[in-house]
């Protein structure tokens, strides 16, 4: 195995690690990528045209494959029996993981939104959480790069909460589908925008990738490379440089420090052979996903860092966030008994509802200080195990010929609106190493202690109300009445799978874990490049920002390596 000296050891091959491997090998560095999961080849393994009828349980989600049999996730799920985690009494946390090359980028939802300046500087406005150590203008070039690399369709409607991209960054969005047109019409009636989503799918060929052909479910992955996966977009060019060594089944568990205060390399365990290895490198980058990177830091104890690397400020593990999430379902009589037509499009949202009330919120006229956006899902999807989830609500106890008529009538007439909101970073929301729990390999596990505050609940109450307004303005009916209490509507923390924070980036070593480039304070060659660095997490899904931050950190390291 890898005897050659590596410039950089990158831990994790998802959005963060894939970006670093791509950038650094492209810049001439020799990179060793450690990935805990197995190798994965989307070109050969993606069930592009497989139909529901051929899947066990007709593709219904199960604990083995929570998002359905054909979902791209390998060796993942909400519960990994080999890798348990704990939660503090009275709290809940959901943690969806994927153990495979490319991590969760193989099946993520691909909504890719830029933060605005007020998202980076929310603390300065309301005194909650912490600011990012840079402004939008300073970070924007990295968004430009990230959008071009990832391949994102979208538009630039000039909204206060959604920065426009410069020309040449975004690809043309596809036209809206039937249910999206209805919600757009509802938005016009309400005077609220419904605009093209920013989605990591290409509608025109770039970088040798084919454009989307509007025919296959994105969450299974895309063998023609039209949507973004680390394994289709980042790792193939990195491999082509000849400077990438990928070690799969390689579970990193400790970063070793040298006496001079630099990181010496990474200890990992081969999950297949159960052998322990050490791999040295001139620099180390952690992109194991936010919570795993924090765990790795916490588990790396030495005389210099008795409580884990980066624990000096007392902030390591603190400020854990997810997005808030809740749903409202509408049923649309106009969509009943439509004639057959192809409504597939990109199998992800073409449009979304941006945060329209930001000006009102900025003026302090709302009872919560951070925003949300709404995503919409529905329409004439391929019939599946959840197509009839609401028939009991709209057509209870029908059977016989009538049931067939009802099935046809209601098919495709439901739309789900889904809130994605900002959760405020609070230091008491944290992960720690559990005193007793260990994973199958004996590595100490995380314990989550994360709760929502009134801010998130008031935001959710507002979002629930807004979603109902959109549905009704669009001519639909609520399938079930809104719960009276937002606590019944809000999904548990972690459920939206935007978990970030725990190793916050900042300008002050006493108030942050890493410097503005993700370098752990006091360890000049150790970078954290994934969502762990987020000091705050806007309602905008995190991955585009992770890619942009990781490529900026990689550029910083490239210069440092050159100077050394």
């Amino acid at each position, binding site marked *: 195995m890898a005897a050659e000296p590596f410039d950089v050891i990158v831990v994790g091959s998802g959005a963060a690690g894939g970006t670093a491997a791509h950038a650094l090998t492209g810049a001439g560095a020799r990179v060793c990528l450690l990935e805990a999961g197995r190798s994965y080849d989307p070109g050969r393994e993606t069930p592009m045209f497989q139909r529901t009828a051929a899947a066990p349980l007709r593709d*219904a989600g199960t604990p083995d494959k929570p998002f359905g049999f054909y979902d791209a996730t390998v*060796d993942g799920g909400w519960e990994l029996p080999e890798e348990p985690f704990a939660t503090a009494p009275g709290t*809940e946390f959901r943690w969806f993981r994927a153990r495979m090359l490319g991590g969760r980028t193989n099946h993520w939802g691909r909504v890719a939104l830029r933060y605005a300046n007020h998202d980076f500087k929310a603390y300065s406005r309301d005194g909650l959480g912490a600011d990012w150590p840079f402004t939008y203008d300073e970070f924007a070039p990295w968004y430009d790069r990230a959008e071009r690399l990832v391949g994102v369709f979208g538009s630039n409607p000039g909204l206060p909460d959604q920065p426009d991209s410069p020309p040449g960054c975004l690809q043309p969005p596809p036209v809206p589908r039937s249910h999206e047109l209805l919600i757009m019409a509802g938005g016009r009636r309400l005077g609220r925008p419904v605009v093209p989503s920013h989605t990591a799918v290409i509608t025109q060929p770039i970088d040798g990738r084919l454009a989307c052909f509007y025919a296959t479910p994105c969450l299974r992955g895309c063998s023609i490379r039209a949507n973004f996966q680390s394994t289709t977009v980042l790792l193939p060019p990195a491999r082509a440089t000849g400077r990438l060594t990928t070690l799969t089944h390689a579970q990193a568990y400790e970063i070793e420090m040298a006496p001079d205060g630099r990181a010496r390399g990474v200890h990992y365990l081969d999950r297949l052979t159960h052998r322990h290895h050490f791999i040295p490198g001139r620099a180390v980058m952690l992109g194991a996903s936010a919570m795993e990177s924090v765990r790795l830091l916490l588990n790396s104890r030495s005389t210099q860092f008795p409580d884990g690397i980066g624990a000096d400020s007392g902030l390591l593990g603190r400020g854990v966030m997810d997005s808030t999430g809740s749903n409202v379902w509408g049923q649309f009589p106009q969509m009943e008994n439509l004639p057959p037509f192809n409504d597939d499009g990109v199998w992800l949202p073409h449009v979304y509802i941006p945060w329209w009330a930001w000006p009102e919120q900025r003026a302090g006229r709302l009872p919560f200080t951070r925003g949300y956006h709404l995503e919409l899902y529905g329409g004439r999807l391929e019939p599946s195990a959840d197509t009839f989830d609401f028939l009991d609500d709209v057509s209870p106890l029908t059977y016989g*010929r009538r049931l067939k008529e009802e099935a046809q009538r209601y098919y495709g007439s439901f739309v789900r609106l889904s809130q994605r909101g900002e959760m405020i970073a609070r230091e008491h929301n944290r992960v720690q190493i559990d005193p007793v729990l260990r994973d199958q390999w004996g590595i100490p596990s995380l314990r989550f202690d994360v709760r929502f505050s009134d801010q998130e609940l008031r935001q959710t109450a507002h979002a629930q109300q807004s979603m109902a307004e959109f549905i009704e303005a669009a001519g639909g009916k609520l399938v079930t009445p809104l719960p009276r209490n937002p606590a019944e509507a809000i999904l548990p923390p972690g459920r939206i799978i935007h978990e970030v924070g725990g190793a916050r980036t900042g300008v002050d070593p006493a108030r942050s874990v890493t410097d503005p480039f993700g370098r752990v304070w006091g360890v000049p060659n150790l970078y954290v490049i994934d969502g762990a660095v987020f000091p705050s997490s806007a309602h905008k899904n995190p991955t585009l920002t992770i890619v942009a931050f990781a490529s900026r950190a990689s550029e910083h390291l490239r210069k440092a390596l050159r100077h050394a």
Partner: protein
Amino acid sequence: MPDRRETLSWLLRALALSAAPIAGTERAGARILRPGAGGAPGAEGYGRDPSLLHPHIPWPSILTPPQKGAVARLADVFLPEHGASPAASALGVPDFVDEWVSAPYPQQQRDRIVVLQGLTDLERDAGAPIGELDARQAEDLVARLHARAAAGAAPEGRFFRRFRQICLIGYYTTPAGVAQLGYVGYQPSARFAGPPPQVLAKLGIEPGG
């Protein structure tokens, strides 16, 4: 002497108990479990890395031939033949119900108990094996089930809803079912056209609007 029904519900309770640890996976603390553990004795799920291109159902079917006959009879009342639209049993729904209730996953195990209990109750009501009823008798049986469910009887309502739901999934995900719903898709094309004019008209949306 326990009668047949008591023996059966005892069996079902035992089954429910064997499924209990699975339900616990959703709670913190009870996390170290085999994937798909807790199914029929010895049954395994397909695991977290099944072949997606060559799907395979690893768990054995649990329904006995009489139970399957009963499922077919009832499914054909829920989803009968009508004109060109085939009956549930012609689209393999009984096999699918068997696949579903035999699966070693929590939702399916809960459904197994509901379905087996419901079949037992209905057979008692029918006074004969359900699979041997003629069409008219089967319709009467379901009409009585429906009346009890509509009157709010909990076990009957549960069976009605879950059995109907599983049949709907089994029916409308087949090619013939998909065609009846009018889903059109999986057609690669260079451009996505959006809904056609007659659909826009039905939605009340101006073309280009």
